[in-house]
Structures are given as structure tokens and as C-alpha cells.
């Protein structure tokens, strides 16, 4: 007996929900050879605005969770990714046009990256924080504090980064207590939305990771100039029209945002990406009178 296939509707991920674009727009996602894969939502500036609102609403509670707890949540994402490995391999191999082995290697690298970053959650503060020497009967402590809401452009290369690139951008941002609005790979956005589905069924609170699919050239200027966005990760902005990421940097400077410049390919996991989106808070505290 023949049966009809039931294709998946790929939508946005905003505030723990999966809405279509408020504009109603979609665009066709194809394989590199031009075969139809899916219709994805084409996010508008208002979707970006809504995503920032959701990210802002979620930020205080996420930053208030203990570092240990955030590490456990991130580690659980890796566990769930492992369980849905076949789905990701299928999506990546079709949308990037690579072999199943290459796609499998990318999924493995992504899982390992989540585990690596999850381990840092309750350790990076020991590396970049400090108990400062003082000449008096009190403590003086420098501790890293999350910057707030970060907007990010995921790596946009056609091959090798559709899942790994997104994870390599998102994981170091959220592990310190930031929330993120990320624009997925434009040509291969399917695994990004599937990753958002994994996040929604793991312990990540809604609004911590918001995924937009669509045109980075259209969305990035609105995110860069948004006054309620605290930092900007331009990892994938290098593919935009030549030099336009400099304009994004200029727009971001208007509201004193921290900016990470574009990289090629997926960013290499590093402590620098973690500390790029934290600020050092120095406080003094009396010594106990015991």
C-alpha cells in the first residue's frame, strides 16, 4: 500500500515556542544541486524584535541559575543530540550535499563541543575571576557576569557548518547566563531548527536560545542597532556584501555593544569565546566576624 509522505514544517524558535514568521513569508530550502528540501520561515525584523523581547524576559532567571545547573543543562543537550543523531545526519547530508560519514562527523563534533563547553560552566569563573589582594579586613572579589542578550549570526558557509557552526556560536554565549537570538545558516537552516526542538525538549528554559531562519543581510542591521541587545557575535557575517559587517559594528557602537568579528568556518571552541560575553564585576565584602 502506498502512503503519502508527511513533510515537516520548519518554523522559527522564539521564546520556547515555534511560531511561523509574523510576516507569513517562507523561502525554499534546496540541496546544493537545487532539489527541493523544505519551505523554511523567512524571519522579518518584527520576528527579530519579538525574539529579543523573549530573550530579555528569559535572561535574569537563566543567569540566576547556578553555574553547576547550567552545565548540567548543557550536558543534557549533548545527550539528547546523541539520541537524535540519525535525524541530524540525514538533514545535514541532504542540505549540505555531503556524505553520511561527513555529516556524522559533524554531528559528533557538535556533541563533543556541547560537552566541552558544558564542562566550562562551573569552571570559567575560577579562571577569569579573582580574589584581589587588599590591605584591610575585607575581601575584594572580581567575578565574571553575563553581558545580557546577545545577537549572533551563525556561520553561513554551504558545507560543514550548518549544525556545528550554530552550536559553536550558541554554546559559549549561553553557558555563562546570557540569552541569544541567533540567525541560522541561510542556505541550510533545517538542522538549526531541529536543534531548537532538541533545546525545547531538554531543560533549557524557553527564550534562552531563539533561532531565526532567513536572510542575515536583512536581519543583522536590526539586531545590531537594537538598543536592548547587549552584544553581537558576527561569526557568520563575513559572507554579507563586502564590508557590510563593518556597518554592523558601527551600528552596534551606537549602543555600546560588544562585538566579535567574523570568522571563517565554525569557530574553534575556546575560552575566549566564553569570556567575550561576560563582564568583570568587582565587589568588596566584609570578612565574617567569626
Amino acid at each position, binding site marked *: 500500500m502506498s502512503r503519502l509522505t508527511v513533510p515537516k514544517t520548519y518554523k522559527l524558535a522564539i521564546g520556547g515556542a515555534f511560531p511561523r514568521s509574523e510576516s507569513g513569508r517562507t523561502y525554499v530550502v534546496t540541496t546544493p544541486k537545487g532539489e527541493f528540501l523544505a519551505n523554511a520561515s523567512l524571519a522579518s525584523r518584527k520576528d527579530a524584535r519579538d525574539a529579543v523581547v523573549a530573550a530579555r524576559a528569559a535572561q535574569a532567571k537563566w543567569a540566576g541559575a547556578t553555574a553547576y545547573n547550567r552545565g548540567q543543562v548543557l550536558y543534557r543537550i549533548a545527550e539528547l543530540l546523541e539520541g537524535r543523531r540519525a535525524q541530524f545526519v540525514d538533514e545535514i547530508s541532504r542540505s549540505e550535499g555531503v556524505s553520511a560519514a561527513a555529516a556524522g562527523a559533524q554531528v559528533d563534533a557538535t556533541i563533543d563541543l556541547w560537552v566541552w563547553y558544558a564542562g566550562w560552566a562551573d569552571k570559567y569563573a575560577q579562571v577569569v575571576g579573582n580574589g584581589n589582594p587588599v590591605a584591610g579586613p575585607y575581601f575584594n572579589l572580581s567575578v565574571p557576569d553575563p553581558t545580557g542578550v546577545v545577537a549572533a549570526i551563525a556561520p553561513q558557509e554551504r558545507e560543514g557548518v550548518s549544525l556545528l557552526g550554530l552550536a559553536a556560536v550558541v554554546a559559549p554565549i549561553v553557558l555563562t547566563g546570557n540569552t541569544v537570538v541567533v540567525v541560522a545558516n541561510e542556505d541550510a537552516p533545517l538542522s538549526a531548527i531541529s536543534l531548537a526542538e532538541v533545546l525545547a525538549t531538554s531543560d533549557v528554559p524557553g527564550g534562552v536560545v531563539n533561532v531565526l531562519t532567513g536572510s542575515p543581510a536583512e536581519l543583522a542591521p536590526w539586531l545590531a542597532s537594537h*538598543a536592548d541587545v547587549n552584544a553581537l557575535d558576527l561569526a557568520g557575517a563575513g559572507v554579507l556584501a563586502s564590508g557590510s559587517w563593518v556597518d554592523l559594528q558601527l551600528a552596534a557602537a551606537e549602543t555600546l555593544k560588544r562585538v566579535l568579528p567574523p570568522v571563517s568556518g565554525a569557530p574553534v571552541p575556546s575560552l575566549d569565546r566564553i569570556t567575550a560575553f561576560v563582564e568583570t564585576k568587582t565587589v568588596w565584602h566584609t570578612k565574617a566576624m567569626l
Partner: protein
Amino acid sequence: MTIDHPVALAPADRAVRLLGGDLTEKALRLHLEGLAGVDAVGLEQRAAGLATRSIKTSSKAWALDTIIRTCDLTTLEGADTPGKVRSLVAKAVTPDASDPTTPRVAAVCVYGDMVPYAVEALGALHGDPDAGLVSVAAVATAFPSGRASLDIKLADTREAVAAGADEIDMVIDRGAFLSGRYGLVFDQIVAVKEACRRPDGSYAHLKVILETGELVTYDNVRRASWLAILAGADFIKTSTGKVSPAATLPVTLLMLEVIRDWHRLTGEKVGMKPAGGIRASKDAVRYLVTVAETVGEEWLTPHLWRFGASSLVNDVLLQRQKLRTGHYSGPDYVTVD
């Protein structure tokens, strides 16, 4: 006869004209209970329909300014201090320090004992919102419950008026209304209206709060609106903001329909003030659409239309900044209170 500014009518004057000189509880009851019932489904559908209008940029800019011009910036907390009132007044006078073209709000709304501080802080800017100045509104009559004897309610009112309040927001006795004692509610409104009289014979504007969240049914809201207007209300107001649900679009539409009917009957214009729960500019614009479509655009002046809100102004300022600068603004760019 058309009276533009619905003030200085003697209390109960309207009821005497409509119901005749022999103003008994029976006459009042016959009138109020003779009002047609409200078609709840139709009312909610009409309100939902009005909420779907698409507002284009230039109209939006006008709407945002109108929201600010007709807003009663409110602080009604047990923790209010003279300092909090002064900072509220500073915001009322200069809502957005980054944009001097921002209009002033219509009034600040405070508890009666805070009126002297509001008047003092406003100084020369205390006056008629039509002249670009800011009025002082005070809640009175044992706000928000209204559970006090009439003497206390009247003393509360007189004290606020004597301290310089231009507008009095009174609450009706919902318990009496719900148990059918319309005459008692009527008499109290009339007495409070009389207490709003200043030594020079003019009256402070009287806003009558129906607390629609406690009236339960739309039929009761319609009756209470008629009752308040007959007793001499200059404004009818939905809620105290202390009871949920507070202002909703259907209830506001219903009250505006009563105001429209009263205007057709007598030519008098009564004001309307939804209060409580309106936090987003988008919602506020829907109320403006409802006013324009129900009683007409001429109602969108501070003397006939007010928003009672504390956090709405901040959202409106964010939208104004977006229109002015072309990029989205954030809560760091408006004042906390």
C-alpha cells in the same frame, strides 16, 4: 444644546431632567432595569473586530502622542512617598528627556494625601491639560474598596479638593449596587459630587469608578454606567486597577456606547477612562480606534478621554523612539518609574 466641557452641572440635575422631579428609588430602578440587555457575543465580536485594524506609520505617530496626551500617569501603592510622587511629576512634565517634542501627560493620579506634594512639585505647570499643563487627580472615597461610611468618603473627597486636586476618582459602593440598592449608590455619587465643589462654586471633575471586574455581568456594567452618569459623573472609569480583570476592550466599548447614547439623548459629553492592565502601546491604540468608531474622534481630548496607567507610558516612549531613530529601543532608555 451641546456642552463641550461636562462640568459645573449641579448634582442630580441630569436625573431630575430625565426622570422627572419626583426622584424616587422606584423611578431609578424602573429606568435602570428597563435598559435593554447586552448582547455579550455581539459586543465581544465587535471589540475583537475593532482590535484588528491595521495602523499605518503616520497614524501610529499621532496615536502614540495622543496616548501620552490623554494619560493619567498613576502611582497608587501603599509604599508611595513624597519622593516617588515628585519623580512621577517629573516624568509627567518631561516624559522623554531625549526628545523635547514629547507631549506632557494629562494628569498625575495619586492618593489624596499625596496631592499637596504633587501640586507643589508641579508648581507653575499645574493646570489645564488643554493648555499643555498637567492636572492633579486624586483617588478618594476609601479607594479602592469603597468600604467606609459616607462621612469618611466625603471628608476624603473634600480634603483632596482643598489640597488642590483638579479631578476626583471615586469608587462606587459595589456591594450596594450588586444587592440592588441603586438609590444608595446614586445618593453617594451625588453627595461626593457636591463635595467636589470648590469655594468659588466650580467643581473638581468627578470620575466614577465602576470596578467592572466586580460587577460580573455586562448588564450590570451598562446599568452602573447609566447610574453614574445620571448622578452627575463627568467621567466614568472602568476599574481601580486593584481587581482583575481590570479594563478590557469589550467593557470599554460597552461604556462608550452608554456615553454615546447619553450624548444623543441630551447633547452632553461624558468622559471615559479605562484603567488597569493596559501596558502595551498596541493595546492602547486599539482603545483609541474603539473611541473613534463609537463616540467619534472629538472624544480624543484630555477632557473626555483618559488612560489610567503606570507602565503604559514607558512602552509608548519606546515606540516613539523607534519611529524617531529608526531602530528598536530598550527599557534602559526610559525611566524606571
